[in-house]
């Protein structure tokens, strides 16, 4: 599927990205780049299931679990993030299974699925706030500074290291995306998103396929949360969990374009640059303005450009490429108004 030329383009682009921090060292711009990469990874993780019509608003919960489990294990038990991050990912995976299984087993789709996952992220927020004796509640939480080995504690002071880590994680996300894109699971999930009964009749194990992609997506989102926590060294329930974060993921993925691998990344670039520009432009008055613009844009995008900027651009550039996949035309519910 991926031609020689595209592979070469990827390789050159990647080399440029790796080389970038050694040539250009402005800390502020590197900081923005790291944030973009980490959030891109989170958005890509979300779009893994979002593109198959499994719209989850619970990913804020998974991200919060990844971040808080890692930080809590480090501060209270002294467990290195190298152990804490996998535990956080497993915890998010277990929660995804607990919520996902009844949803998929009993055919909870559409509105119901969105509402259930929405409640999930709300509840994770409540739990983090409720256990304020351990998590610091809404005031936020800071992992302790490591006295000795920086590598063991996964705490680095220079931006270049973080840039490379974030780049690696982001690349991992893209690779997984392509891996899913070329797997049998994709065809199964596309069939499911078009017609569950027909897919089941054709021998697709609907529950198992949905659970697998949900598990993958949740675990990756938890990783994003943990990396974010290690990089920022400060987390609050509102920045890593809750409904706002979940909606932010959906928004960025939709703006960028759900059905292309770089779509969520594109969305992250746009949304983070937008937020930063507004923040610099308005100064401290900006509190709230970025979300106000986000919200208006989200509504406008869903009404007028549901395929996202990158998705629409690629469509425009290559009209002769092929007939759009059937599921992109209608069945994946985000795709297009008017089925």
């Amino acid at each position, binding site marked *: 599927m991926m031609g020689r030329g595209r592979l070469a383009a990827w390789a050159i682009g990647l080399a440029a990205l790796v080389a970038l921090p050694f040539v250009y060292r402005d800390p502020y711009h590197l900081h923005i780049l790291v944030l973009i990469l980490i959030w891109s990874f989170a958005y890509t993780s979300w779009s893994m299931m979002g593109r198959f*019509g499994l*719209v989850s*608003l619970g990913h804020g919960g998974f991200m919060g679990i990844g971040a808080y489990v890692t930080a809590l294990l480090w501060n209270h038990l002294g467990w290195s993030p190298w152990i804490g991050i996998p535990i956080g990912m497993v915890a998010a995976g277990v929660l995804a299974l*607990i*919520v996902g299984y*009844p*949803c998929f087993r*009993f*055919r*909870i789709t*559409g*509105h*119901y699925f*969105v*509402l*259930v996952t*929405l*409640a*999930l*992220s*709300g*509840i994770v*927020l*409540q*739990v983090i*706030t*409720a256990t304020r004796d351990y998590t610091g509640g809404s005031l936020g939480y800071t992992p302790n500074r490591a006295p000795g080995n920086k590598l063991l504690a996964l705490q680095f002071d220079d931006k270049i290291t973080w840039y490379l880590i974030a780049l690696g994680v982001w690349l991992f996300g893209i690779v997984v995306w392509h891996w899913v894109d070329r797997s049998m699971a994709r065809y199964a999930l596309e069939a499911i998103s078009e017609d569950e009964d027909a897919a089941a009749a054709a021998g697709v194990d609907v529950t198992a396929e949905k659970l697998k992609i949900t598990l993958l997506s949740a675990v990756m989102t938890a990783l994003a949360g943990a990396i974010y926590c290690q990089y920022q060294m400060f987390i609050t329930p*509102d920045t890593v969990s*809750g*409904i*706002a974060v979940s*909606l932010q993921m*959906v*928004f960025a993925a*939709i703006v960028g374009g759900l059905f292309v691998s770089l779509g969520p990344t594109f969305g992250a670039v746009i949304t983070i640059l937008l937020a930063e520009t507004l923040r610099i432009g308005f100064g401290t008055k900006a*509190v*709230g*303005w*970025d*979300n*106000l613009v*986000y*919200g*208006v*844009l*989200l*509504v406008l995008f*869903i*009404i007028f450009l*549901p395929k996202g900027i990158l998705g629409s651009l690629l469509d425009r550039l290559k009209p002769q490429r092929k007939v759009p996949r059937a599921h992109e035309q209608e069945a994946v*519910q*985000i*795709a*297009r*108004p*008017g*089925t």
Partner: protein
Amino acid sequence: MQAFLDIFDIYLLEAVINGILLGGVLALLALGLNLIFGVIDVTWICYAELVMIGMYAMYFMVQHYGISYFVAAPLTILLVAVLGAALHYLVIAPLLTAPPINQLLATGGVLFVLQSFATVAFGIDFRNLGIRLPVLAFGEMHFSYARLLSFLAALVGMVVVYLFMTRTFTGTAIRAISQDRQIMALMGVDTKRIYLITSALGGALAGLAACLLVLQYDVHPFVGLSFGPITFLICVLGGLGNFIGGFIAAFVFAEIISLGGLFSDLEWGYVLAFAFFIVMMFIRPAGLLARRR
């Protein structure tokens, strides 16, 4: 030991009654959401944010302009009703033929807009009405008048909606549309008008809830998040669009939250409610009152 049991029972009874009082307001919110869903087939993710705007309206009218509570309340209800109609007209109407998830996400965008609008316009301070209603002592149990008043007002509100739905022509048309969308247009019912009226009605219910909640809670831009998720849980548990199911589910949830709060923090009551919800999804996935297939 006997003394311990006596006290325990009193507290238990108090928690049970407080749960019922809390359930009234939750039932009101669930009714509004169910109405919108049942008739227009859309879920307003931003429903709790409409309530938040209503609470701010109450706060400013009562605190800043010195309008009496009982004059401000109808104005707030009217304001939020207009907001609901505007939400339908501006956001939902262009998306009526779009896939349901798109409509839902668009209202998610509205959630962002309302929250950040409140942040920009009113700041993130916690504000309250400054009205302190007395506490009613009944034997050794204590109930706040605010809760009692909310419960009664919520009940009255629901009865009014019930009468409107069963006794008026418009109400009958609304119920008919929720049964069959296509046919009713053929029967000469102006669907667009009914949708707009329903949205305004849903908004009015949110406005009423705002008037009642502002008596008990401080208002801040993110206050919607503290009862929004629980409202969605209630509606799903009761069966989306099922009015009676939502009513019962509201009280079940309120009891769990109240009783859970008795043994530990209030937030743990919410967590317990969520655990209960997941268990119920295994047992009755289509809602409490769903008929067995």
